[in-house]
């Protein structure tokens, strides 16, 4: 299989629903915590080492063949906010649809049967990477990158931030994405031996709190 499949999967235009989600950026913008490129970078860095690391490790473990049901439960336990659990399953379901059309595989069909209302997105992402013939580390990178690219592009829309500045933020985070992907692969390999409790559970209180505040707004631009 081709490594270039990673470019297809990680492309922001891959039709899997991500465009309607801000990764917590909309709540942080409203709270006045993201006001420009500098605070966006700090937001993305915090999200990368918490939700990003967890997603990255879950996705990698899925590529390595850890039982999706166990991974989905592990994702639930690492996502206290019900608004975020709902968003993750919605995105998982949308990704699965796109994945089954793009890289048809019995394993993806089975996953759709097992989770008719959607599994957590990183779990689906890992199995999608598998169906696309990608390596564990590819899924680790893809999940880690999504954890920061989503908020960055949402902030361009929310603050009319200069898109060059937002892209430069992502570029500056690249070495840290390497670090997170490496850690995620290590943790996922440990989870293959020791079970899903070995997966990281790094959390970000303000992402959890912000997600619930956001879900309670009557008017918002993004679904999460």
């Amino acid at each position, binding site marked *: 299989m081709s490594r270039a499949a990673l470019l297809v999967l990680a492309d922001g235009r891959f039709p899997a629903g991500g465009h309607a989600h801000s990764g*917590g950026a909309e709540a*942080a913008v409203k*709270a006045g*915590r*993201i006001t420009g490129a500098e*605070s966006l970078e*700090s*937001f*993305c*860095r*915090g*999200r*990368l*080492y*918490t939700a990003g*690391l967890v997603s990255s490790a879950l996705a990698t473990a899925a590529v390595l063949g850890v039982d999706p049901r166990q991974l989905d*439960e*592990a994702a*639930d*336990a*690492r*996502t*206290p*906010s*019900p*608004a975020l*659990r709902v968003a993750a399953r919605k995105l998982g379901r949308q990704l699965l649809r796109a994945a089954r059309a793009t890289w048809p595989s019995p394993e993806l069909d089975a996953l759709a049967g097992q989770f008719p209302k959607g599994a957590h997105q990183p779990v689906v992402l890992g199995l999608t990477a598998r169906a696309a013939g990608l390596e564990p580390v590819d899924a680790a990178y893809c999940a880690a990158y999504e954890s920061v690219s989503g908020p960055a592009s949402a902030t361009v829309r929310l603050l009319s931030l200069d898109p060059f500045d937002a892209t430069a933020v992502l570029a500056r985070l690249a070495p*840290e994405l390497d670090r997170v992907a490496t850690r995620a692969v290590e943790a996922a390999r440990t989870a293959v031996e020791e079970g*899903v*409790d070995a997966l*990281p*559970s*790094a*959390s*970000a*209180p*303000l*992402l*959890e*709190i912000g997600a*619930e*505040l956001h*879900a*309670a707004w009557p008017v918002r631009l993004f679904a999460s």
Partner: protein
Amino acid sequence: MTAAVAGVRATARMVARDDGRGGTALPVLESDGPLALRRTRGSGAEPRVMLVGAMSGPLGGDHFTVTADVREGARLCVGSAAATIALPGQTKGEARYDVRLTVADGAELRWLPEQLISAGGSDLYVGTRIDLGATARLVLREEQVLGRVGEEPGRLTSRLVLRVAGRTVLDQELACGPGAPGGWDGPAVLAGHRAVGQLLVVRPEFAEEPVPARVLGEGAVVVPLAGPAALVTAVAPDALLLRRALDAALAALVP
């Protein structure tokens, strides 16, 4: 764990069991070194134990463990006499504080210690693991204060794992302070707040009737977990405001 050079190792244990007369007995109440357990007043049905820090809190290289085992039908409430302060030790290196709680079917534990304060230069890992039976009940409060007044915090990593009937319902780790992964004080994680806390309430009836998610203020929410449990997450500028938020949440959750 990093090398514990000449650190103090101490394990305090307590066991609560149904005394057969509608009350709870404490057959085991074992203090160890700096970890002293004292039975204080409290009702016969729900004895109260205070954790008294006979020495200062964990220093670099120390490894403290506290275990509580609340057996079938028993009730126990545990508090602490004062805040625990993580301090830098003479030996550089991480200190570790493990809390292991087991609550059997039909039993109830209220675990309400005072704050954990991460003093400048300290380096502490706190691991709290709770195993509950399917019909066990729990109220647990955790508060972390980053630095004494006007002080930069030390490094603090705190993992909280809740299992109910063998299934992991919550697994959360928060790392902050110098040396923690980047962004910990940024807009996604703490954004300058110096006190962060959680209140975990487990009730078998929450499985049927989950607590609805509710915003309690700009810095606090209560959410239903994917299991018979509700979690309050709160951030605040200081310990006092944090406690106020958690107390209000507790009063609303456990009338």
